[in-house]
């Protein structure tokens, strides 16, 4: 059969040149093919157990590849830094810089020898220790993960080495308009002392002052098995995962957690609209951030309506903001908006890098979209249907890979939500109606409270931005301090 097909191929090639019109006449290309019936999606089966020390272990067996992905989620992030901004980040960064039994380089060599990937990283409210390994090196790789988590050395010379690197990186941040814009935005929206307003990587002053005692006490109080969840996905049974977890993390000691561990950052007081400009002489683009405090992760109906709202407003390519500023006006390579759903009300932010000469025009279009979705041009039934299809039908794609499943489950575990939320999410999004979207747009978007940050060439942008009347305009330095 195959052979005779191959013979035919030559003959048809000659024919095809002559008859393309005939072939296309049989096909009406103006009708988009309708989708087939939706495929059955096998939701990952999560087996939940715990170690005697209180560590929860969530396992999903996926035998497609001989690999294992894991994440240890620890509820310790920069929101727990207190006045010592950068503490969570530094603690996480030092975990693999030497342990009780191995120097920093010996540890790195041990990981490399396995061909595994192992690293720790702190974000706003959590620290994630991530591992990916071939199954054949699983036991050794988990042992290294356990060593890093339970027996970090925090040696003085490693702390100093890390400090030097961080201080240098902080001084370099003023080179990057995107970083300056995001740091300043958080600081101005939440205030410099709020858990979401402090920079997660600290400042030159705070990083310079953090001591070994600060690090060990942060580690000792929050890095506890009863403050963490281990998610394991891949070519591994729940029993095997428990063995790996026990060998790696069984000796990790539980302890009472400080009251600060579970504290939910309060919503800051509402602030009137304000505009902050930071000079980047000669910059080809202006980096724009617009927003205010948003909403917390919850299973309240508003959460799902806010997802639909953002999909329409600025959460994806075909959203209003991007279609206007990029595809309509050509001011930018990409414009977007998003909610950071945290334990407390994380920020809502609309952002883009725009051509310097179009800075004021871009702000006008941003403000137009942010205002009109509340009143004037509320979401349509078609837009809501589109956004819901987008959100619901992307589900199979988000759990296509083991790392995708790990990331979904780690998120649920962090928020203390059940794994059933993976599918409950879909039906709750389905239940959102256009009126719900308009209601949350009016409730959660408050243009008269928008903080606007623009990092760009001040000489070119100052007068045009001031003329927009978006609020009082102040000029700041790259650290966010007011300039005269």
């Amino acid at each position, binding site marked *: 059969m*195959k052979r005779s*097909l191959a013979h035919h*191929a030559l003959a048809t*090639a000659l024919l*095809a040149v002559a008859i393309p019109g005939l*072939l296309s006449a049989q*096909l009406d*290309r103006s009708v*988009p*093919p*309708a*989708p*087939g019936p939706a*495929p059955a*999606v096998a939701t990952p089966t999560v087996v939940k157990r715990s170690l005697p020390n209180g560590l929860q272990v969530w396992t999903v067996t996926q035998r*497609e*590849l*001989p*690999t294992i992905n894991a994440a240890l989620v620890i509820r310790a992030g920069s929101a727990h830094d207190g006045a010592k901004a950068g503490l969570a980040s530094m603690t996480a960064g030092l975990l693999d810089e030497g342990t009780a039994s191995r120097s920093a*380089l010996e540890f*790195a*060599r041990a990981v*490399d*020898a*396995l*061909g*595994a990937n192992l690293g720790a990283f702190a974000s706003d409210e959590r620290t994630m220790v991530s591992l990916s390994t*071939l199954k*054949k090196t699983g036991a050794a790789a988990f042992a290294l993960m356990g060593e890093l988590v339970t027996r970090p050395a925090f040696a003085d010379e490693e702390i100093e*080495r890390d400090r*030097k*690197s961080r201080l*240098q990186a902080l*001084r370099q941040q003023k*080179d990057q308009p995107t970083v300056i814009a995001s740091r300043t935005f958080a600081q101005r929206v939440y205030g410099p002392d709020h858990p979401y307003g402090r920079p997660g990587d600290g400042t030159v002053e705070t990083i310079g002052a953090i001591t070994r005692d600060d690090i060990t006490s942060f580690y000792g109080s929050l890095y506890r098995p009863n403050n963490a969840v281990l998610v394991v996905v891949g070519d591994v049974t729940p029993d095997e995962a428990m063995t790996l977890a026990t060998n790696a993390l069984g000796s990790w000691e539980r302890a009472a957690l400080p009251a600060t561990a579970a504290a939910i950052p309060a919503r800051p007081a509402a602030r009137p609209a304000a505009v902050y400009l930071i000079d*980047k002489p*000669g*910059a*080809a*683009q202006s980096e724009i951030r617009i927003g205010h405090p948003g909403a917390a992760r919850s299973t309240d109906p508003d959460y799902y309506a806010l997802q639909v709202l953002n999909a329409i407003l600025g959460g994806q390519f*075909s959203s209003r903001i991007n279609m206007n500023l*990029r*595809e309509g006006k*050509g*001011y*930018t*390579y990409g414009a977007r908006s998003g909610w950071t759903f945290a334990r407390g009300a994380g920020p809502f932010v609309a952002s883009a*890098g725009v*051509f310097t000469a179009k800075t004021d025009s871009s702000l006008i279009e941003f403000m137009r979209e942010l205002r009109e979705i509340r009143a004037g041009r509320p979401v349509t039934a078609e837009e809501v249907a*589109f956004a819901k*299809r*987008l*959100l619901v*039908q*992307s589900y*199979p*794609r988000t759990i*296509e*890979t*083991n790392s995708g499943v790990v990331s979904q489950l780690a998120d649920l575990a962090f928020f203390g939500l059940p794994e059933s939320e993976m599918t409950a999410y879909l039906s709750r999004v389905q239940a959102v109606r256009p009126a719900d979207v308009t209601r949350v747009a009016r409730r959660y978007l408050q243009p008269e409270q928008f903080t606007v940050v623009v990092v760009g060439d001040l000489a070119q942008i100052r007068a045009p931005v001031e003329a927009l009347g978006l609020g009082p305009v102040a000029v700041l330095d790259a650290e966010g301090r007011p300039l005269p």
Partner: protein
Amino acid sequence: MRRLLLLAAGVAALPLAGPAAAHAQELRVPTETFTLPNGLTVIVHEDHSAPVAAVNVWYHVGSGREVEGRSGFAHLFEHMMFQGSKHVGDDKHFAFIQEAGGTLNGSTNADRTNYFELVPVNYLERVLWLEADRMGFLLDAMTEEKLTNQRDVVKNERRQNYENRPYGMSFIRMGELLYPEDHPYHWPTIGYQEDLTAASMEDVKSFFRTWYAPNNASLVVAGDVRPAEVRRLAEKYFGAIPRGEPIPEPRPRAAPLTADIREILEDRVTLPQVQIAWPAVELWHADEPALNMLANVLGQGKTSRLYERLVYRDQAAQSVSANHSAREIAGAFQVSVMAREGTSLSQMERVVYEEINRLATEGPTEEELVAAKNGAESQFVMSLASTLGKADRLNSYYTFKGKPELFNEDLARFRAVTADDVRRVARTWLVNRPHVVLSTVPAGKRELAAQPAEATP
């Protein structure tokens, strides 16, 4: 048929029996390949592990085929492919995939342009309809207005990723210094602003007619699909698109330097950086794997020699990197070091040569080589997790090597590298060979640039 049945199990990485078992795994990415009468090659990979389908189209044209005065055009053209074709409608291309819950994008480099989508499998036919419509009927929907808009978008892409990004311009400058003016890798894929301004509708039409023909493309469909069904759909949607003129395959074109080149770029940066680059080898050249291993041992990750010495021990550098970038017709080996404030780029440059010389003399240790190979193997296996990733690699193998199923041959090349190979390629391509030294320094501080050894006291 027999072949199909045997391979229908999907992707599996099977440990081999025998003494090699601890080190070797056979990667299986079975494919069914056929070519339509118009020259379009279709490659189908069945993987029923998730109810998704990946579609990945490669056109064998990149910025390397651009003509004088039209740099950046291949990439600008890629943008035009998302603007709607005859039967799809303006601004609808993205929406059709997005409402399916899918993702899509495209990318351009010097050698090829790719377009890819990942969708729930019940939307496969819609994706093929979209890809066929823009392969066959793009020009019917093209307007001056769309071109003007995307020209602005691409100019902003250049501003965002190069002009307004610290060290961004050094990437462009390095290509210009490393390759002669008429070499396809001399100019940047993003292009020059004035060339983007000059791009016209006539350029769009002739570029499309020359390069976007089915005989210059290959289509991979991977995922929860059946080859017979994919064949039916491919014939239905792509079969009637006319074949274009024959297109010659690019040939390897080395670009040896005759003397060292040193240059200084001023940028809005805090830390000075030195990039040192040598002409090396193209994809699938016999020396490619050993050069990649050399880069790994020299400057990739915390266990690399330059990290250990310059970042960890001396604490003189903020970061180091090394990589061998083998492309279709040529390649380059590059080392970058970002110095900390108060340390000297000249000193960094000398250490780079010292460490390369040491590897050229002593070779890597057994431990270094094993770690580099294990890393390569596990990256290979893990890259199979993503259906889109597999699809793109199948197209790469097919486009550059004429055969999609080369996973094992590719991995075997890396497994076969010896310490002697690493030593030999360091001597052949790097030691005492002409190279480019590009210093990027804070504006007004040219004195911080790396100086040639004889000029430093």
